[in-house]
């Protein structure tokens, strides 16, 4: 065990994976000698050589295309997209190619070895193009797995699972927590399961659900609610696709209430799917409508970041609305 921040945990996972299997390759913009603009790949080129950790030209569609090819050849490429906001030029390669590679070929070929890492989310004064939470854009895509860790321990365990999972994984890192989140992390290899949510805290009155950096926001909101005497169950989804319907449904059947707190703009954020599914599965148990605290339906503004953001206060208010319904 060592104290690591989220970046160090990522770096440690990458290090473990590269040491374990020499078909693991890391590439992306500035990830080589420099170690990435956030330093997540720091030291890896030195340790494993330029062939296995290298800078690419500045072209996200190429990074994803190259990664697809390398994975099809039997490798475990780990491609970094410098910011989640810049993943859209790679959208076609990911949605039309990565996700459909195995299915369309009848399993003659697959890109299961692929992992795409990208930092996402706001709270760093990044404005429109360094703040987006694009997970929902990808969640409509059968064939992809989408994973979002919330702390260093999860980051390492989930990333190692993602790298060696026989399916392509989009791994989204909450950059706001890169240095802010610190915790105990084993130095050796370990994995955490994909597709499984985690009950962070048990409770009886309301289920509050989120993923990634938003879980911290939820914890703050729940603290406030607890002062009002509310017992809240907190669930961290961890995987967006496939997602753990069962754990969420079980919780909601117990509490009768669900509040979702999410960073992305309200309309068609992933909470929409959760709400749509849970109202179906738990209809007779629900004592209030499922509430969503989300970002506004606008691009992510700089000066009004605070106002835009679904912070702990808005989440707390949503919990109250649910309970007072």
């Amino acid at each position: 065990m060592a104290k690591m921040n989220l970046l160090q945990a990522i770096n440690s996972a990458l290090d473990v994976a590269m040491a374990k299997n020499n078909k693991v390759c890391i590439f992306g913009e500035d990830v080589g000698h420099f170690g990435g603009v956030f330093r997540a790949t720091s030291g890896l080129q030195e340790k494993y050589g330029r062939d296995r950790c290298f800078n690419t030209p500045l072209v996200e569609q190429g990074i994803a295309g190259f990664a697809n090819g390398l994975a099809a050849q039997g490798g475990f490429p780990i491609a970094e997209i410098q910011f989640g906001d810049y993943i859209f030029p790679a959208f076609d390669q990911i949605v039309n190619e990565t996700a459909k590679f195995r299915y369309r070929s009848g399993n003659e070929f697959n890109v299961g070895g692929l992992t795409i890492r990208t930092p996402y989310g706001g709270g760093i004064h990044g404005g429109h193009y360094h703040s987006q939470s694009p997970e929902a854009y990808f969640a409509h895509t059968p064939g992809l797995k989408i994973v979002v860790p919330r702390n260093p321990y999860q980051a390492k365990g989930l990333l190692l699972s993602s790298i060696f999972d026989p399916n392509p994984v989009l791994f989204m890192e909450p950059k706001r927590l890169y240095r802010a989140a610190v915790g105990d992390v084993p130095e050796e290899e370990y994995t955490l399961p994909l597709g499984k949510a985690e009950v962070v805290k048990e409770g009886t009155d309301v289920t509050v659900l989120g993923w990634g950096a938003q879980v911290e926001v939820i914890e703050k909101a729940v603290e406030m609610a607890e002062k009002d005497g509310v017992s809240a169950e907190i669930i961290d989804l961890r995987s967006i696709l496939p997602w753990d319907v069962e754990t969420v449904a079980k919780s909601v059947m117990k509490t009768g209430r669900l509040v979702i707190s999410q960073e992305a703009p309200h309309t068609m954020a992933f909470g929409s799917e959760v709400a749509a599914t849970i109202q179906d599965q738990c209809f007779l148990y629900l004592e209030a409508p499922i509430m969503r605290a989300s970002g506004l339906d606008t691009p992510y503004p700089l000066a009004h970041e605070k106002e835009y953001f679904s912070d702990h206060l808005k989440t707390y208010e949503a919990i109250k609305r649910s309970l007072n319904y």
Partner: protein
Amino acid sequence: MANKAATTNNIVTQLEVIPGDAIKIPTFQLLKEDGTVNKGAKLPEIDKELALKMFSTMQFIRLLDERMFAAQRQGRISFYLSSLGEEAASIGSAAALKFEDMIMGQYREQGALAYRGFTVEQFMDQLFSNEKDLGKGRQMPVHYGCAALNFMTISSPLGTQIPQATGYAYGQKQDGKGECTLVYFGEGAASEGDFHAGLNMAAVSKVPVIFFCRNNRYAISTPSTEQFAGDGIAPRAAGYGMKAIRVDGNDIFAVYAATKEARRIAVEENEPVLIEAMSYRMAGHSTSDDPTGYRTKEEEEEWRGKEPMIRFRNWLIKKGWITEEEADAQMAEHKKAVLAELKKAEQVPAPHVDEIIEDVYDTPPEHLKKQLEALKEHIRKYPEAYPATSKGVK
């Protein structure tokens, strides 16, 4: 730790505007249109066996295209796409590779696949989307693929295979077995952003990949004059610091020789090469297309005179490696085989409904299993509405 960019520091004090046609690339040709050899040209080393294999594959593809086009017109298959006039480009290039090299196609390279050994039956199973199709009936006709033959499954979105080929070749280079990747694409697809990405990345990372552009002058109805303003695709290579070859795509010997040399450069020098094969799409784009709306009969006629098969046939006959009769008899054999397999494949049932959720992931997750169960229950209720699969649902 320092940027030693080679970019010229050659200083001039007079403003020089480099013209748009600064680079003009000639076309390499060995066989003339009539099948005689160009003066001074040296044919590649191709023995009789190889030559006849290439020719037989060419005849097979010609026949397959003709028959399956007709089959589509008869409503027996839903779609087809012919490679008429471009057989030399795909077969000549495939023949110059090692079997272990990966081929990534666009969709008009059935010649390369047949050369690799895809059987008539395998073609038919794919075209009829039946349960024996390696692709499990999931994609439209002509989207072939076969891992055993190192032929990547075709994907419709254009250009996507180009950076993928670069990545694939990167893995081959790492494995160090002396293998390379050849990737086909049309001059239309070369306009996609993925072309730029794939070529630039290959040049920078020095991987053994051959970018093989079939310039057949049309992208559906769009003539190449509306696709680009320059001298075709080959000159773009220099923009990436990459080697290039332009070849007469209707001359199977020239294509073979060019690809052989490109392969040598790719594998021995770890350098990508761009080949542009000049040809003409003699048929419509696909069975959904009618080219009379956008080009003249005269133009088609002109190119009929340049088509690749007759040229090769004439050469073979003159060489004494085949007779007219043998060539015709071979064609008749191909026809028999195609017709027989066509009839067989038509009778093979559709894939079982259970296949619908396989291969989305390595194993079906819970939600897909539930969706399949619900679907099967639904089919049981309305079997007549799902005739292709209801028999398989108990």
